[in-house]
């Protein structure tokens, strides 16, 4: 009895300690983000605490800053193209890797994942050296190509994980019923793979949108993406405008995947609700 109470007390303290540690970790993780967001509404000229008042002036200023707007448009455009192309390449690659047997499959599987493991700086320099070697100019397309290179591994991994869970009998059933391989992919695999396709696209978008180090190497002269724009602004001063810009970045990179996730969840819930009206015969 006493031993049990003793154990209970010990357990309680252990839980308290765990809770305290958890809170500390979360503060450490999110304090910078919260600070950026809060300070973006500060009316003071200097980007720091204490706050002097609430103001939206820095956002207003952003909207007038043609350079920032241009960078935002560039980043958005690059991220959209990257997401589109990467998803197509990634899903097809994942399909080939999970469903077909061919020579060098293992090697290909490893090579596809490699860009995610190699330091970005190395990739940045590597791509530059390569386009130099084939004597190509640094254009926006090179930048997009680079982003695709960076994002493909993640899309492949996400799609592969889902494909492994889709049983082969579905394909065999569709084929036996008369659907060609292409029709089977379109009618059976793709719908079942949809969550992974959406997740992959969102992931690729985010990876492209907030990529900094590799973009620094690849961007053509005079072109700024959002992260590089922030970096160049930081060189001049720590203006509260940067906080506002940072908040916009956070909104885009966190908000879009979140929105996509919610959308998917809503869709599956709708379907499940349809199921719960079942009547056993």
């Amino acid at each position, binding site marked *: 009895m006493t031993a049990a109470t003793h154990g209970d007390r010990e357990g309680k303290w252990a839980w308290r300690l765990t809770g305290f540690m958890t809170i500390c970790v979360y503060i450490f993780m999110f304090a910078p983000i919260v600070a950026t967001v809060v300070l973006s509404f500060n009316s003071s000229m200097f980007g720091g605490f204490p706050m002097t008042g609430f103001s939206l002036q820095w956002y207003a200023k952003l909207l007038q800053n043609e350079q920032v707007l241009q960078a935002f448009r560039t980043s958005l455009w690059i991220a959209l193209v990257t997401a589109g192309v990467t998803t197509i390449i990634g899903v097809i690659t994942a399909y080939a890797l999970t469903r077909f047997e061919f020579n060098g499959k293992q090697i290909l599987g490893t090579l596809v994942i490699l860009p995610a493991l190699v330091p970005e700086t190395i990739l940045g320099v590597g791509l530059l050296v390569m386009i130099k070697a084939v004597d190509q100019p640094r254009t926006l397309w090179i930048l997009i190509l680079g982003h695709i290179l960076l994002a493909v591994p993640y899309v492949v991994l996400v799609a592969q994980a889902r494909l492994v869970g889709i049983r082969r009998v579905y394909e*065999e*059933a*569709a084929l*036996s019923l*008369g*659907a060609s391989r292409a029709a089977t992919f379109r*009618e059976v695999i793709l719908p079942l793979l949809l969550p992974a396709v959406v997740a992959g696209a969102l992931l690729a978008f985010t990876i492209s949108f907030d990529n900094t180090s590799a973009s620094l190497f690849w961007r053509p002269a005079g072109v700024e993406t959002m992260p590089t724009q922030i970096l160049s602004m930081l060189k001049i001063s720590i203006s509260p405008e940067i906080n506002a810009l940072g908040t916009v970045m956070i909104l885009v990179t966190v908000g879009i995947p979140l929105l996509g996730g919610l959308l998917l969840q809503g869709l599956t819930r709708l379907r499940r609700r349809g199921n719960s009206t*079942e009547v056993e*015969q």
Partner: protein
Amino acid sequence: MPDTAVSPVITSRSESTGTSQANAGTGYERPAVEFRNIDIAYGKFVAVRDFSLAIPRGSFVTLLGPSGCGKTTILRSIAGLVDISRGQISIGGRRVDDIPIYKRNIGLVFQSYALFPHKSVFDNVAFGLKYRNVPKPEITRRVGKALEMVRLPGSEKKLPSQLSGGQQQRIALARAIVFEPEVLLLDEPLSALDANMREEMRVEIKKIQKETGITAIFVTHDQEEALSMSDQIVVMNAGMMEQIGTPEEVYETPRTSFVADFLGKANLLAGSVTASDGQNATVALKAGQRVSVVSPRPLSTGTDITIVLRPQKVQVGAGIENRLSGRVISASYLGGNVIYEIDIGEQTVIRANSQLVGKMIPEGEAIEIGFDPAGCVLLDETGSRVS
């Protein structure tokens, strides 16, 4: 080792090249599916060796055997899901070696149902018709008819996840037969169902097959399913055909010791011939007893022989032929029937499944058993039937 049912089918070259699909429906003597000396190998492992079989139109043929015997591989080779390494397969007289699965016109039912989870029952069943360019109103009509046939009318709008296992398998069956395929392939379709549902589905499948007159090839490891449903049973072992015949033939007159053992766990009693005339032989069992059996041909004295004796043919009690005495080592009461395991000496154990008359004989007690000389089958030294 092709048996009686495999009659060489004469097909002229021009007919077998694939142009004959139109008259396939009316071809009378042409088998629905025919294997000619096929081998199937996975790398170095040969799963099926020199398999030949002609399956008559409209029949229900079961491939029966333990797991790994190649039965599923053969079924999948008809569908085109595995490649054959030698020989040829014809469906309705048309060689299908180079025809991809989606052009073979076969209905496939899987153990795991494999209904498309994101499609409604209607879309699932209509799938095959859609790829055969059937007009929309006709699709609706035929899907309705197929659902009626599997006794799930009006379930068009449901999703597979809303149905029980048995219902899903019925929908899968409807999906496989709605476009009137050349042959219906059933890959252990009852194995995922619980016992009650299995029995019901067994009757259902057989009924639908009769009604539609479709050729069905059924794969199972369950001898009860095979015996109760089939017109012909092909017993498989280690990639080879052991025996083909009607359920009765295969059960009553097993051709090999494997068949005898696999179907119904027969008693295999080893012994040697001590005397033999044209019809009867006296056999000295390894356990010491002498029994007389009916032999289809004279046997030379001293030949080693195995007597195949079904547990149901073992009689318990007095006043019977071939009397053997032993001791009960286990007795299981099945209500009306008892299964005894009887030690008759020299580590020979006989299983007897007998109708319970009076009291059950408890474990450890002495027991008298016997069997009719005509109620058994003889196998020679090589394990094949004496005939």
